[in-house]
């Protein structure tokens, strides 16, 4: 069964990079552009893992994480923060809320895959079988 990952980031560019990083893996990627949409997507999709930005319009990532951890149905979903902010107080506050891991932007695709793999199982897609040439008439 494919691993379901929810990417919550207001930047379409980052969501595209996440999608590109995962394209070789058997994953279903769901997307949300802010914390409010992210909470709704988490409740609807029940992802295996959430990648979460901090600074977003409407609802920021810290508020979303707080609400997620208050919800008995969603609190066990592992969350990896994906943000450019790594200030001491922010990191400690987020760690106390129960985040599983933290990746500072900019990041390499293999760093993201490594962080995801530490928290959920992702399998590489099997290579498509080589096309068989039609027999000569």
């Amino acid at each position, binding site marked *: 069964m494919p691993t379901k990952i929810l990417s919550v980031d207001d930047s379409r560019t980052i969501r595209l990079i996440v999608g590109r990083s995962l394209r070789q893996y058997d994953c279903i990627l769901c997307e949300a552009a802010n914390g409010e949409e992210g909470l709704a997507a988490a409740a609807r999709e029940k992802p295996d893992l959430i990648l979460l930005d901090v600074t977003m319009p409407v609802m920021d990532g810290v508020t979303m994480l707080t609400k997620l951890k208050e919800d008995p149905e969603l609190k066990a979903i592992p969350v990896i923060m994906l943000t*450019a902010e*790594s*200030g001491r107080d922010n*990191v400690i506050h987020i760690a106390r809320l129960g985040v599983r891991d*933290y990746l500072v932007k900019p990041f390499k695709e293999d760093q993201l895959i490594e962080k995801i793999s530490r928290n959920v199982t992702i399998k590489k897609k099997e290579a498509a079988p080589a096309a068989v040439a039609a027999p000569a008439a």
Partner: protein
Amino acid sequence: MPDVSNYQELSRRYGFAPKPESASRLTQLVSRQDSDLDEIAKVIDKDPALRKRLLRVANPDAENEVEYAVETVEDALMRNGMGCVLVLAMGTPLALALTKSFHTMLSLKLEDIDRNTADPLDGEHVLGTIGFSGKVDGRVYLRMNLASARAIAAGIIGISPDELTDPNEIKDAAGELLNIMTGNFKSNLCDAGLDCRLQAPEVNLSSDFHTPSVPGGGLERLAFRAGNIQLFVDVTANPWND
């Protein structure tokens, strides 16, 4: 389970890169309103890149070092005050984040260049701005020509510039670069007790950019180049707002 109140332990666990020491030290010094200029001068003098940048900030109209009227770190600090030290401290993590973004997302080596050797940015170009407010108020301006913005967005997304047809993708990529740059220096400011919040980035086309005036604050004007891509970054800051 990690000790979630221990930042050092969390940094190791999460694999954070070490923060540039001289910039962190400088930010801490600026955050104290009673800081000794001699102490700040010592930190800057120990770091040739910071020294060079401070003298560039202190001589904004000079075409090259021969034209510098302000030649020493002490003189530059006396004339320009803490605002200019703050933009120097902010510029280091900002430039590192930008260079790292180019390396990781575009596989390009971005180099800090002297603003006076950069090709001028004439006509309509992409202008991204992001403000921050709190104990420090300021703004970061990122400018580039359309070809550079297109090449950056296409490179990040992983397509050729010709395939990029949606102008929103160009804006979004420039906005994310701004977010990454400012997020990195905001962490430095907050760690030094200068708490501030980032505003949402704005990216538009402009042909009418004027160097911002920053009474009582600091302004640093940076330029970068990677192949045909050229970026201009202006940083303004006013410390000690309550």
